[in-house]
């Protein structure tokens, strides 16, 4: 449900003119909800940025997500994070 909720909140932010990107843990849910931009990550539920107390991994996920914000590609856009 979290992946759907994120996509629906994301739509509200995008509609305010804010460029949004979300993390996806369940790709099949994100494909159905179709938010503007999402980075699918191969982590378990509860671990959207990888691991606790692993700033380097968290940072890599964040930077990969931010790349979608400036990507010149058709929307909706789902990209897979490469660990």
């Amino acid at each position, binding site marked *: 449900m979290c992946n759907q909720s994120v996509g629906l909140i994301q739509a509200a932010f995008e509609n305010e003119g804010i460029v949004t990107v979300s993390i996806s843990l369940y790709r099949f849910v994100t494909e159905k909800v179709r938010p503007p931009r999402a980075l699918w990550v191969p982590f378990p539920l509860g671990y959207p940025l990888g691991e606790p107390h692993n*700033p380097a991994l968290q940072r890599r996920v964040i930077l990969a997500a931010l790349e979608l914000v400036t990507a010149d590609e058709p929307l909706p856009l789902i990209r897979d994070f490469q660990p």
Partner: protein
Amino acid sequence: MAELSDASLLVRSFMRAYRYTVSNWQPARLTKPLSACKVGLVTTAAFHLPTQPTFDLKLAGDPSFRVIPTDCDLTTLKVGHTSPSFDHTGIAQDPNLALPITRFQELVAEGVVGALNARAWSFCGSIAKPGELITRTAPEAAAQARADGVEVALLTPV
């Protein structure tokens, strides 16, 4: 990797039968580099301050949100999510795992992004009936973000 096969039979059956809501949006576009943008953070990890009410995990879900000041002491955040569908220990140990305030303070200091907004938005993601989320609470949080001058938002589920 989050696999549906790892979920309980009840959750698997529910998720297979559930009719997901398609999000409805108009694309926004950046008009300046990220290094000049103010970033807002949104999570559905149900974080709340000790002084804020927790979330009401009734069956349909709690569409309310808590405003988290990004200068708060992250170690004091509570996790209001009690869903058995995921492991809570990671976000309880390190809130940055879902609400990466410290990571963005670092990115601001390095000039990768312009600024981190003074408030973040925390929802509880277990919302099976998202009507009020779509019509009332998500637009309310988004309007706050716009009023704050947020230009880019990162959203994380759990």
